[in-house]
Each structure stands twice: as structure tokens, then as C-alpha cells.
């Protein structure tokens, strides 16, 4: 498994040297950005068992922070870092407050509050015209370090791998283990003496901050930001990527991001052939419902449980032979 990942990573790093296609690189950059976003979502849904329907708000906070900083001030690396700090602070505060309010209650409350709060952010972005230029959004210049598409491609790839390793380490740490215990059985974890609320809020904050960073990268890659970053569609993207790829695996989120973005690209191209493909999201909706119903572990989870079964059968046979 590790070997496969390394080969894929090396391939992606070297790709710009051998292949030149602007569209493909933009698409791949998009995939890396959404992978970070989907992994942050996976930390909540897959590892802690918290359902959020307003993940777009963290994404949007990041996108707007960078946009506003670059537009109002000079597009330099210094202001870029300031904007990133701003994103981290804002997303941390928002996710902390939301977590504090709702995570001690039933799981529905977090989903509901995030859903309505992201609706509020959408309205805010539409109405606060002096700051956000309303519905139409605005373009902005990015620091010169990010102008080169290939460099930015490497940066996003690097960050995706970094976030992956970080989250891998994080979920395997004692803290992450407690989170997984909460997912499996919250009451039991509590009766073992863990303060469940603290762990859930931690998960919420880490996930919110990472989603904000994904938002920053997204806005920089487009050099444009508008209210669409706060819409339900962004949250749905994260949901689809995580669920279809496989919850609680991290790799699943990356694979899911790849599948959804490629399929999106492909179906948008098909839309010229037939109008039904403009409503491409309907196919994903149906696939999503079927996956939740029949393959709740997603692609990665289903595949790995299959291979695990095979291994187990293999081992049993071996034992039988030994005994025989």
C-alpha cells in the first residue's frame, strides 16, 4: 500500500516535467485542494462521527480572507501569511463556538447549526457589498510566488501530502484514538473517564482550520472569489468525496476528490451533448444514496474489507493445512 502511494506521489511530482497541459494541471491542483478539504471533513465524519452540513463556511472564510487581503492590501507574501493567520483565527473561533454550543447535544444539532450558520455566512457575503462586492465577487492579484501554475501545483501537492501525513499521525495519536472511540461508542468512552466534549471540540476546530486553508488555496488557484464558496454545493462536494471514497480512511477522501472532480469535468463536457448532463449532480446524489445505504464504508473501506476477508480465509486454510 505504501509503495503504491509513493509511486503515485513520485509520478505526480514528475508529471510537470514530461507533460504540458494547462487544463490538466488546473484540474489536478483543484483535486489537491479539494482533497485537503475532504480530509478535513473526514476527520469529523469518519474519525469522530460528527456530521456537519456547513463545512462550506470554513472553506468560504478562508477564500474570502485571502481575497479581501489581496484586494485591499498589496499582493505580497507577507499579506498572504497574514491572511492565512486570519483564516486560522476565524475558523478556529467559529468552529470552537459551534462545537461548544451543539456538541454536548445529539448529533442532529451540530448538523443543523452548521447548516444554518453557513446559510448566514452566505447572506453576509451577499449583503456586505463594501467588503465582498456582493454576489458577483471579485478578482484579485496573487503574490508573485504563486503566479506560476506549476509551482502552485507543487505547493498544493506538497500541502496535500503534508496534511495527509499530519492527519494520519493525528488520528493515530492517543487523542485520535479517543476520537475513534467516541465514534464507536460515545457513552462507553465517557464512562471510561474521558471528557468527550473536549475531544469533539478539538476535532471540530482542527477540521475547521484545515478546511479554511483549503479555501485559501482554492481562492488563490482561481484568483477569484464569489459567494459560491459558501453555498451548499461546496459542503456537498466534501460529503460526496468522503462518502464515495470511504469514510475514516483519509486515502478515501483523496480518491473521492479525484473521482468527483474528474467526473465533474467530464460531465460538464458532456452537457453540450445532452441537457440532462447539466444536472450532473443528480447522478451523484443517487450514487451517494446508494453508497450510504449499501456500502457505508465507501470504495476504500469496501475494498480493504474484501482483501482482509481474503487474507483471513487464506490464513485459515494455511492453519488447516498445518493441522492436517
Amino acid at each position: 500500500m505504501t509503495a503504491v502511494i509513493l509511486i503515485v506521489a513520485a509520478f505526480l511530482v514528475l508529471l510537470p516535467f514530461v507533460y504540458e497541459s494547462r487544463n490538466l494541471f488546473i484540474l489536478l491542483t483543484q483535486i489537491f485542494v479539494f482533497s485537503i478539504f475532504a480530509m478535513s471533513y473526514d476527520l469529523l465524519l469518519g474519525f469522530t462521527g460528527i456530521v456537519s452540513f456547513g463545512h462550506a463556511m470554513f472553506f468560504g472564510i478562508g477564500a474570502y480572507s485571502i481575497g479581501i487581503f489581496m484586494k485591499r492590501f498589496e499582493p505580497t507574501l507577507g499579506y498572504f501569511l497574514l491572511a492565512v493567520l486570519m483564516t486560522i483565527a476565524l475558523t478556529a473561533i467559529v468552529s470552537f463556538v459551534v462545537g461548544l454550543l451543539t456538541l454536548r447535544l445529539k448529533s442532529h444539532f451540530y448538523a443543523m447549526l452548521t447548516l444554518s450558520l453557513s446559510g448566514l455566512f452566505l447572506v453576509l457575503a451577499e449583503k456586505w457589498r463594501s467588503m465582498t462586492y456582493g454576489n458577483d465577487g471579485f478578482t484579485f492579484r496573487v503574490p508573485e510566488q504563486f503566479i506560476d501554475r506549476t509551482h502552485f501545483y507543487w505547493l498544493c501537492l506538497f500541502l496535500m501530502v503534508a496534511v495527509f501525513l499530519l492527519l494520519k499521525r493525528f488520528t493515530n495519536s492517543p487523542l485520535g484514538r479517543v476520537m475513534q472511540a467516541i465514534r464507536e461508542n460515545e457513552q462507553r468512552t465517557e464512562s471510561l473517564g474521558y471528557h468527550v466534549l473536549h475531544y469533539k471540540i478539538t476535532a471540530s476546530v482542527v477540521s475547521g482550520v484545515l478546511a479554511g486553508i483549503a479555501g485559501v488555496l482554492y481562492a488563490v488557484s482561481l484568483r477569484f472569489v464569489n459567494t459560491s464558496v459558501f453555498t451548499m454545493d461546496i459542503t456537498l462536494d466534501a460529503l460526496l468525496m468522503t462518502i464515495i471514497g470511504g469514510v475514516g480512511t483519509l486515502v478515501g477522501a483523496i480518491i473521492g476528490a479525484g473521482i468527483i472532480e474528474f467526473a465533474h469535468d467530464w460531465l460538464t463536457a458532456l452537457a453540450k451533448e445532452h441537457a440532462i448532463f447539466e444536472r450532473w449532480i443528480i447522478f451523484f446524489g443517487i450514487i451517494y444514496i446508494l453508497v450510504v445505504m449499501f456500502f457505508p464504508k465507501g470504495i476504500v473501506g469496501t475494498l480493504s474489507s474484501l482483501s482482509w476477508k481474503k487474507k483471513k480465509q487464506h490464513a485459515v486454510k494455511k492453519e488447516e493445512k498445518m493441522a492436517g
Partner: protein
Amino acid sequence: MDLIINLTINGLATGMLIFLLAAGLTLIFGLMDVLNFAHGGLFAWGAYSGLWIYSQTGSFLAGIIGAILTGFILGIITERWIIKPVYGNHVQQILITLGLMLVLSEMLKVIWGPNQIMASPPDYLKGSWELGSIIIIKYRAFIILVGLFIFAAVQFVLKRTKIGLVVRAGVMNKEMVQSLGINIQKVFMFVFMMGAGMAALGGVLLGPYSGVIHAGMGMEFAILAFIVVVIGGMGNFKGSVLAAILVGLSGSFMAYYVPDLSLAVNMLLMAIVLIIRPQGLFGAKG
């Protein structure tokens, strides 16, 4: 003075529409522990199908009945094939109802096109009454009356009929009801159907009230309905009607005085309720 009365009537009418959506949501939650994120989709389906029938037949009453029937059918389908397979698993339930919401609202765009559709009330509900300096728009009064009627009807069913008794008992303790030999699955389906029907009715009534309908309106109203359900207390039917009126009134007054903050005020209300009384403003459970 007449401004205040006008705003109050506006608020009451909006409140009644939200109530129609929130009532089903809260009953379904109380009984089955399912928070139906697709409820807004049923609302929008009610609006589209009802107005389509209205435009084809020219009879608004037929449109309303058609919308309610659409709600019933969609409710049965949703309960039977979407929610039933995942009963008992909260995370899966929440996820699957959101997926359904997505499919429902995209289906609307496939069938009726992605653009807004205009709607106007039938002739006998157009215009207004003038009482001195106060002008009451007929259609708004009509919405308020329908809302009150539905509230009274549901209250009657819950309090005076056998099925209502079973529903109330089920909210308190499902297992006990089941062990007394009542097929709770059938009760679930009945409640889900009724909830979906009420949501669809709310949708079709909204059309002529706001003048246009679009596929995104389900989500907009669903957010208001969630706020109402939280403020009124999850599973509390009476609480939901009071909270709906409260949210409707605050919405209409804020929309007049500080239009940009109307959603924010409701959100703030919800946040305060979550901090102080997570069980809802109105009474304990039940």
C-alpha cells in the same frame, strides 16, 4: 399603527408557512428520532406540483389537493425505501436524507427547468379588505386561516383519536408501544406521510404568497424550520407552532426595519436557546 398590523399579518402568514414545514419535522423527530433533512425538498415539490396542477386545471383548490397528494406519495416512498433501511443509525440517517434533498431539488430542475416560475393567487383570493385605514391582503389572511385549521386538526387527531394516542405514546416510549402489540412501523409511516403532506401544503401556499417559486426555496425554508424546531423543542408540536409564529414575526419586523439582519436575529435566537435551554423554550418534553 396600520404598519404594525400589516407587519404582524405578514409575520403571522410567514409563521404559518414555516409552521406547516416544522410541524412535520418535529413530529417525525419526536416519534422516530429521524431528523429529515429532505423536508425542504418535499416542501418545494409541493409548490411545483401544486402550481403545475393549478396552471393546468385553473383551479387553485385542485392544486392544493394535488400538492398534498404529492406530499403523501413522496412521504411514503421516502419512508419505505430511503429511511427505513437505515433506522437506528443516526449518522447514516442524517447523511441519506441530505442526499435525498439533493436528488429531490435537482429533479425539480430536470422536470420544470432551472428558472423561477411565476405564481399568482386565484381571483377570489386577490385584492384586499379595507377596514378603516387598515388594509388586509386576502391571501395572507387565507394562509393564516389554513395554518390555524391545520393546527387545530392535528391537535384534534393527537388528542382525541386512537392513532393520536398511539403517536403520543410512541413519542414517550416506542418500545413499550410496540410491546403492547401495536405495529409501530405503520404509525411511523402514517406520521411521515402526514408530515410530508403538511410540508407540501406549505409549499403550494407559499407560491402565490411570494410570487415566484424556485428550486432553492426548499433549503431556505428548511433552515427556518430547523431554527423553529430547535426553539420550540425537538419533538414538541405545540412548541413548534409558537416558535414558528415567533420566527415569522421577528422575520417580518426585522425585514422592515433592519432587512440585512433578519436571518441573523433568528440565528441568534437559536444560539441563545441552545445555550440556555437545549430542550426548547416551550415546556419540557411531550
